[in-house]
């Protein structure tokens, strides 16, 4: 059972454009939603995270939008740059389970010149 569904599987965006990656979850016990960025040959690195008591969180060019009623959250990358080309994973954590995360299947982002 895929508890966190991520789309699209891959995304090509022109430099300067907006990249949008969407995730949906089923378990209402999830209380923490991080996004991880992974470059080839490296482990994932935390990019930004949100809790369900807020609808949006912004850090630089990266924004998470969270819709609790729809059980959806998305990552927006503004002014996308070639250096943003990586695989992005959304994840969710069930309350009380430390960092035992359930990950989406990943989105491979390519930012072209």
């Amino acid at each position, binding site marked *: 059972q895929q508890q966190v569904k991520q789309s699209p599987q891959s995304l090509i965006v022109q430099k300067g454009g907006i990249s949008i990656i969407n995730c949906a979850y089923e378990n209402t016990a999830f209380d923490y939603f991080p996004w991880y960025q992974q470059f080839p*040959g490296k482990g994932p690195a935390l990019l930004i995270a949100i809790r369900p008591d807020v609808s949006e969180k912004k850090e630089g060019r990266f924004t998470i939008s969270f819709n609790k009623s729809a059980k959806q959250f998305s990552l927006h990358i503004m002014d996308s740059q070639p250096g943003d080309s990586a695989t992005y994973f959304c994840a969710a954590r069930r309350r009380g389970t430390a960092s035992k995360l359930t990950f989406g299947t990943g989105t491979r982002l390519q930012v072209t010149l």
Partner: protein
Amino acid sequence: GAGVSQSPSNKVTEKGKDVELRCDPISGHTALYWYRQSLGQGLEFLIYFQGNSAPDKSGLPSDRFSAERTGGSVSTLTIQRTQQEDSAVYLCASSLGDRETQKLFFGSGTQLSVL
């Protein structure tokens, strides 16, 4: 060290052999996790260690998989009688372990190939 260190970075083995994967977490991190990343899939939780507590083994896919953490630091993931479906990148992560601090720091992983 500055980050989570995993060894070996690559491991090729024959079906039926046992393998050991090692993880050195960030100094001072009390929580240690193992995840598995298969091609085209997300990360799959395997096992979690927190301090001296009993590990959470709920993600281990079969009894061929086991892990230990010695002295609250280094961890070893052992896969016995490897199968081709065990081929994946095995990622180790550590965190401070505080309930409100969930930031995971991942190593670069061990790419396991079972022939």
